[in-house]
């Protein structure tokens, strides 16, 4: 990809770099600019993008649980129908008591996303209105989309399983028994799952 081709993208990034303090941001590929900001910068950046750079369309908002880092990454994806660029605004907050600003006054539909993320990840949005319960009902456990929520384990505890399948065999173990092969413990993580 030549430098020329990504002109528009670079221009936008330079503009944002001048206005705001960005953490490691880049033009990822054509039609794709990614900026990382601190949570307190979210509203200024989004407002600026909407009002001054014609990023009028709020395409998506999502949250990723990076449990290894102890952080949630929330990403706002904006779309400029004229320049045809996706602007990714990413921010990271702590998994434990992260709070984000509410942006549904910029785009009304963000309200739906925020309600879902609040329910599924347990992130609080300052001043978000709307019923606490959105998709789930009477949910008393950990927010289910957090990575430490083990759905298979939960299902085992909560729901029934039709009996009659206990005679299933694992091919690898079955052959091992037949041949008296002894698989060392440290190798087991490489057996097929």
């Amino acid at each position, binding site marked *: 990809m030549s430098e020329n081709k990504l002109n528009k993208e670079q221009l936008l990034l330079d503009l944002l770099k001048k206005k705001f303090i960005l953490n490691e941001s880049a033009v990822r590929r054509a039609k794709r600019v990614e900026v990382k900001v601190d949570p307190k910068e979210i509203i200024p950046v989004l407002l600026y993008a909407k009002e001054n750079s014609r990023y009028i369309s709020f395409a998506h908002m999502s949250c990723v649980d990076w449990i290894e880092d102890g952080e949630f990454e929330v990403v706002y994806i904006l779309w400029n129908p004229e320049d045809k660029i996706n602007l990714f605004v990413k921010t990271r907050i702590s998994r434990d008591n992260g709070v984000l600003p509410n942006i549904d006054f910029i785009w009304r539909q963000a309200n739906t996303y925020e309600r879902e993320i609040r329910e599924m990840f347990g992130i609080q949005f300052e001043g978000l209105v709307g019923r606490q319960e959105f998709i789930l009902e009477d949910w008393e456990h950990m927010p289910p989309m957090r990575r430490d929520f083990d759905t298979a384990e939960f299902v085992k505890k909560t729901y029934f399983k039709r009996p009659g399948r206990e005679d299933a065999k694992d*091919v690898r173990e079955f052959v091992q028994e037949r041949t008296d092969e002894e698989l060392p413990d440290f190798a087991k993580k490489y*057996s*097929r799952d």
Partner: protein
Amino acid sequence: MAFFDLKGLLSPVTGLKQFGKKPHTIMFPDVAEHASDRYRGLHFNKLEDCIGCGNCSTICMNEAIDMIQIAGYEGKKGDSGLRPRVDNGRCCWCALCVEVCPTGSLNLTKDYIFVTPDANDFLWTPGIDNKEKGEENISFYSDKETSLSDYSRVPMRELDGDVRIQSFAEAVLGYNEEEARKEASRCISCGLCTESCPDHMHIPEYINAIARENDEDALRIIYDNNPLPEMCGKVCTRRCEDVCAMTHRGDAIAIRWLKRYATETAKNAEIIKEIVNPEIKEANGKKISIIGAGPSGLTAGYYLALRGFDVTIYEAKAKAGGMTFYGIPKYRLPAESLEKQVGYMQSIGVKINFNTRVGKDIDFKEIYNNSDAVFMGVGFEKPWTLGITGEDLNGSLQAVTYLDVINGGGDMEIGDKVAVIGGGNVAIDAARVARRKGADVTIVYRRRVEDMPADWEEIEGAEDEGVHIMPQGIPIEVIGDKNGKVTGLKFARAEMIPDPDGGRPRPKQIEGSEEIMEVTSVIGAIGQEGDYSFIPDDMKNQIKIERGRFVVDENKQTTLPKLFAGGDSANRTADAISAIADGFRAVKAIEKMLMK
């Protein structure tokens, strides 16, 4: 809009024109159900083609497929004997199981109606529960092209034939990292290969480790029950690859080359020690003697040493490795490679007494009495002779002897035109070595090329290097001149007679087809046998020997309780990996016997 909109009221009435037309209603169930030629309905499994690899069961994200035992399918090498049973209360007809089935036995059919008041009926075995009309209804299948299994092996880079014959440099170059990852990622980890491996190496696990870019773990897994993996990685007879699930439609996973890749990442003995970092148990004071530093002896020595035994190996020759050093030519297994592996063993405490022939330099009885257990891995040293006239002529020699001299660093005059008799790996080795020594080589073999017991890769390699192969030739006489020097080989053509008992066809000499081939040497390579003269007669009487081999039980124990044996002199498969397996099994038995 006017309140009374005539057009708007009348237009819908035109719908009445459909009145009286033939309806397109499908009068099910009066007419039979129909489905397209590609419909994904209920499963059907061709039970005879199925090998029970369980790949369908692992790809199913609904855990709908169980592998179960079925009466009549006992399982053998390359077939676990298990067959898939589908829980239709889970199946979602995505047909991923069909796409990954390596043999193509599992298919989906056009049948889709399955209605019952009893939910337990939905657990059924395809191929058994729909035996009658399942096969003819097959609609969604996957052939070699559409299958998600990758059937073609990453080719191994080799030196060209004419370059190879210039020197004894290793002919096979080995996989580089990218090739190894790609080849390893073809493996479906079914583990059927482990049963075929005499040593039951943990093949799927180490291949998986390579695929996940963790070569060190791969090496650690390999060293769990094979202390000579680099040797195996280069020259193993790889029975594992014969039963690989991929062979049913394509090339087996290159298990041997992958092992070779994993072992070659450790460049010297210190690095091996650092990576494998074995746990060495505290010395337990028991003394074990091992006769012969071949694969079985070395294996027994290594694992006994790890278990805290005091191990001494007695080796008649100057180098360890036995047949793998003196029998296998260096272009297949370089000397440094073996030295590296043996060096690593010595570094963890295996003592090897070189140039010590038991029976000559040290008495067998003395060893026996001074040890808590003795393991014999003495191998087959004595070559069989052809049993034809002229074999004692100058220039008629045995392949094992010839290879022994060459591998030991010496040389032997063979002239420029050589006939090698035999079709095994030893014959090919001798032929290719002679070729490297500049001779024009012809292999004379009694049966057809496809009957040759040698590896096909070896045969191909020999042909690439310009070795001629003359199949269906029966040697009759070695002809010499008046000085007792070989000048020719008289042989006859053979025709193949089918065996009425269903065995492989037998060669029969064609009358009057005798010819004479002019040669300077004849190398016989039709087999070897053991030489047990080192055992004193009074002990030999107590050891049961049948057909030239020690009789051992599954613990590799001979009829003398303290005496164990393994390798060629105790098993019939006569290859390095069986020897290693024998050594490993004897270790377990010895530990059990002495440490209870």
